[in-house]
């Protein structure tokens, strides 16, 4: 292929890796976003004695390097006899990590809605949750979206670190081919980079499109 020694088999191998990268990103973002919304809602309305320990815990998730988290959690689960496969471990750890960032994004989004707007909603007889659902979350989403898109793209790159627990995702599969065909290293890495780009691009375009649409109303 391309006048090189890279075979279709190699490409398929990389595509399988890319599929895993996508799958891990998807589950991590899904779990992390849901958990982050719950934690963010709790943080936005809790007294300090809830907020403080919760903030500290989430700070741990944000500050300990992911690589260490993967390895620690993986050892922990095997000692505890949970028998989780590496793919699941990767998703769980990344989801927890994502949730810590998402919590702050959600908290910031909620905080960006003017108090008076929320009082206006409550004064019409809306309950706390109606205010959240119909006013605060839609408005907060406009503030949250750019950071959330950024987080998604970051998490996708961070999935590369699951190689540490033996998951062969896109970057790891590329490395494996490179060890076999070191002279094709540049081409292989270029293909891997292209795949990352092709996946990221629509996500960031979608974000830009939504932002533009919303700005037209504001």
């Amino acid at each position: 292929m391309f006048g090189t020694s890279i075979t279709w088999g190699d490409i398929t191998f990389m595509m399988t890796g890319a599929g895993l990268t996508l799958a891990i990103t998807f589950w991590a973002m899904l779990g992390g976003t849901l958990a982050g919304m719950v934690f963010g809602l709790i943080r936005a309305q809790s007294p300090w004695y809830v907020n403080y320990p919760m903030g500290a815990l989430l700070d741990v998730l944000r500050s300990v390097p992911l690589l260490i988290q993967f390895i620690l959690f993986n050892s922990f689960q095997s000692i505890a006899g949970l028998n989780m496969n590496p793919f699941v471990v990767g998703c769980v750890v990344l989801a927890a990590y994502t949730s810590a960032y998402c919590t702050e994004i959600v908290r910031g989004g909620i905080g960006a809605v003017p108090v008076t707007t929320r009082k206006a909603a409550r004064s019409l007889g809306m309950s706390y949750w109606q205010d959240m659902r119909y006013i605060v979350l839609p408005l907060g989403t406009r503030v949250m979206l750019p950071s959330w898109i950024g987080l998604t793209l970051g998490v996708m790159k961070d999935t590369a670190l699951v190689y540490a627990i033996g998951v062969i995702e896109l970057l790891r599969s590329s490395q494996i081919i490179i060890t076999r065909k070191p002279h094709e290293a540049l081409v292989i890495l270029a293909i891997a980079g292209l795949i990352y780009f092709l996946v990221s691009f629509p996500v960031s375009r979608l974000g830009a499109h939504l932002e533009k649409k919303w700005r037209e109303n504001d």
Partner: protein
Amino acid sequence: MIEIENVKKSFGNLEVLKGISMTVEKGEVVSVIGGSGSGKSTMLMCINGLEPIDSGRILVDGTEVHAKGTDLNKLRRNIGIVFQQWNAFPHLTVLENTTIALRKVLGKSRSEADEIAIKQLKHVGLGDKLKVYPSRLSGGQQQRMAIARALAMSPKYMLFDEVTSALDPQLVGEVLDTMRLLASEGMTMIVVTHEMAFAREVSNRVAFFRDGLIHEIGSPKQIFESPERPETAAFLKSVL
């Protein structure tokens, strides 16, 4: 009837309401005037339970607002409030702003809610802005939308908190006209305002707030022409 009985409220160490008592009868328009920081906004928020109080009590049609068992969400349907600004829900069109509580709070169907909302929006002169987002409205139009939105809930009371003070002078008139219309239709209103001419013309009574207390209350004629307290006279002199 709104009965406010010796209400006290502090934010931390700052005592903002120091024992407010006042009764607003059905059909009455009471204007509240006074310097900034005297507790006017806080009192309005206490009336519909947006702020808790420390002591005293507030009764709306006999229901004690801050009693434990009171369903505030239900009580608030009877009390419309319009703030100085940021009333609009910017992600919803004018029509959606006006129908959302009708649908989600009162459980009305879309067509029922639309009908009520359109009637109220026409009433305040926004019949041609239904599909527009609030950002496309002038400040005066936004305030009129907020009034229509509150009225759509068929409240028994309307509270206004300096609704014209963030507006450009040329937009003040249209909002005051809307409130004047409402008063003439017999709505029971408490109007916190800096518009002294308006207060004088529209109110049955005027309350002068000073330092967390009602310093003086009486007919517009008494307050504006022959105030009993020197501080009332001094305040009026400073704003007129």
